[in-house]
Structures are given as structure tokens and as C-alpha cells.
């Protein structure tokens, strides 16, 4: 084997390994997510922040454990008009920063009016420097959506749910989160303890 062939083989191997790594929050994954209809991978950086619309089927797909690659999922339901939602957001962003590379998927679901999907909602998320994939739930069946997430939830906001890798709710909090309580719950389910 010549040196050139060896270098070419090593290069190809490195390229194959690199491209097989899961891309989470970069623009490429956001683009491929849009093309494939895959709801989970959406937002990029604050400067290219996109809030994606979810219907009831999209919400069900988002919360499904299929394709989650054994990762737990944290979901925060919020709205720009909800004062405690805004108040807890800096803590949520901190928690996302702490656990993004430690095996946790974190998405936010706004229930603002659909007309605010390109204005108020991304505006607030940019202000918060939020990097988690952001969605806006737009469905005439809000009651069905609430009951799908958790039959015991009355729809009070904010509400934060932690699903384990199998899709089971292992922690929930309605109202402003207590950051340390949420961190303890996350630590119990992420692979990097």
C-alpha cells in the first residue's frame, strides 16, 4: 500500500466517522429536519433561530421515544404572555447549557398565537439566548394535546415535563421551576451522571 493510498483511506475513514456523529443543533440538522419532517432537530443559534409549528400529530411525534437514541427529553410549555414562564426562562437556558452535551434533549413548546411564530416568540427566545429547539403548538384540539402530554395536567402554564428514554414521565412541575429540583431529576436520567 502506497503512502498516498494509506492517507486517502485514513481520510475516508475519518470523514465517515465524522459524518456519522449525531448533529444536534447546527443548521445542517435543522435543514435536514425540515426536509424529512422530523420535528425534534430545529433551532440553530440565536441569530438563525427558527420557531417551528407543531400540530397535535407533530406534538405526539415530538414526545415519542422512537428515534430518541436512548436520550431523555425535557419539554417546557410556555407562552410570552405568561409572566412566570418568562421569569423561569433564564434558568431553563442555563440548564440546557449544562446538560446539552451530557445526554439530554431539551425542547420548548410555546402556546402563543400562531401569528406570533415569527415575531414575539423568536424575539423573546433570542433575548434569552435560548438554543434549544423551539416549537409553537397550533392545534384546535388543545384539550387533546394537554391530555396526551399528561392526563393529570389541567393546562396551567408554565409546565415542565421530563421524559426518560422510554418516553415515560419521570418528573413534572407546573408553575415556575425550582432549578435545583429539576437538575436532580435530570441527573437521575442522563447517561453522564
Amino acid at each position, binding site marked *: 500500500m502506497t503512502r498516498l493510498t494509506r492517507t486517502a483511506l485514513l481520510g475516508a475513514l475519518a470523514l465517515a466517522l465524522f459524518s456519522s456523529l449525531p448533529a444536534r443543533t447546527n443548521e445542517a440538522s435543522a435543514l435536514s429536519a425540515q426536509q424529512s419532517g422530523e420535528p425534534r432537530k430545529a433551532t440553530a443559534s440565536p441569530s438563525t433561530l427558527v420557531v417551528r409549528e407543531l400540530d397535535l400529530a407533530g406534538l405526539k411525534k415530538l414526545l415519542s421515544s422512537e428515534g430518541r437514541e436512548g436520550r431523555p427529553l425535557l419539554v417546557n410549555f410556555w*407562552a410570552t404572555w405568561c409572566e412566570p414562564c418568562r421569569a423561569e426562562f433564564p434558568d431553563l437556558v442555563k440548564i440546557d447549557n449544562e446538560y446539552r452535551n451530557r445526554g439530554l434533549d431539551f425542547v420548548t413548546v410555546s402556546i402563543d398565537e400562531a401569528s406570533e411564530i415569527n415575531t414575539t416568540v423568536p424575539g423573546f427566545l433570542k433575548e434569552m439566548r435560548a438554543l434549544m429547539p423551539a416549537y409553537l403548538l397550533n392545534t384546535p384540539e*388543545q*384539550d387533546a394535546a*394537554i391530555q396526551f402530554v399528561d392526563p393529570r395536567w*389541567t393546562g396551567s402554564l408554565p409546565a415542565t415535563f421530563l421524559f426518560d428514554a422510554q418516553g415515560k414521565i419521570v418528573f413534572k412541575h*407546573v*408553575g415556575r421551576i425550582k432549578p435545583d429540583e429539576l437538575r436532580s431529576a435530570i441527573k437521575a436520567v442522563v447517561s453522564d451522571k
Partner: protein
Amino acid sequence: MMKRYLFTFALVFSLCCAALSNIDVKASDSEPGAIGSVVADFKLPDLDGKEQSLSSLKGKNATVLIFIGVQCPVSNAYNERMEKLAQDYRARGINVIGVNANSTESASEAKAHASSHNLTFPILKDNGNKLADRLGAERTPEAYVLDASNKIVYRGRIDNARNASSVSASELRDALEAVLAGKPVAKTSVPAFGCSIKRG
């Protein structure tokens, strides 16, 4: 012989487990504000500080308790509809009672709010969230329908749209019509997005 003892022990143990799990089920059935549970009489001050009771304010045929807020935009979107509901049903023996359980909102703020939005139905101040806790109320607006014997027959949203012009289902009115007709309420529990009640 030993095997038989072990078998008997296992049988007794599993029966105990089954019995305990049944107790759990029963406990969750009687959670606060469960449909079919009876609301015992309570006393709370109105927005002038005057003590009122469920028995003095209740309607002959039914009573609607609605948890409302001063600052909640969802609750505020329903001000006119709540007032209309109270007026439409007053003559039919159904009284609407508003309840402000937000620890962050004072009785005087709630009074000014009611006055500026022309809310004429009585509003009670639930200091310490005593009633909200008893009913398991978490949200504004969140409505409870009590029949003539104070049994909860409906809990949940007023209707299906924040924007009054988009309403296509009015579960609260449907529940009241069912009670007046002596029929069972079709949808007894309907959640909705709203503001959390600020507990003290």
C-alpha cells in the same frame, strides 16, 4: 412441607399487594375537585371584605365557580363571556361566583379590575388558596359546575377559544344546559391552557 409454606406466603403476599394497589386506586378517585365529589359549604370574604358562604351565594339549580385573575391575559379574554354567562343563567337558577386565589393580587386590585370590566357577579378572595386547594384548581380561568346538591359535575375550560369569534365548542354552557335538563353532563372534564394560580 417447606414448599407449601412458601407457596402460602407468596399467595398471601400477592393478595396483600393487590389489596394495597386497590387502595391506591380509591385514593386517586377522591383527589381534590374530582367529578362526583361534593363541595362542603365554605366561607370566604368578598372583595369588600364581607364574609360570604357557598350556601348564601349558590344557585337554586346549580352554581358555577370560576377561578379568575386580574393580570392573566387568558382570564381577561373571558371577562365579557363570564359576565354574559352570569346574566344568561341568573334567571334560570344558576349563579356564577368568581374566585381570585392569586396571592399576588389583593382584594382591592381585584375590586378595581371587576369594576373596570363590568363584572357584576360576586367575586371571593381565596386568601391562602384554601378553596383552590380543596378543589385542586391550578389555572385561571378554570370553571367548576356544582349541581343543586353541590356535587361537582363539570370542571375545566369555559369554551375552546381565547378569541370569542373563534369559539366552536362551549363545554361550560353545555354542562349547565345538561344540569337544567336533568341529563348527565357529556364532557365532564376539559383542560385548557391558562395562567397558573399564584399560591402564597
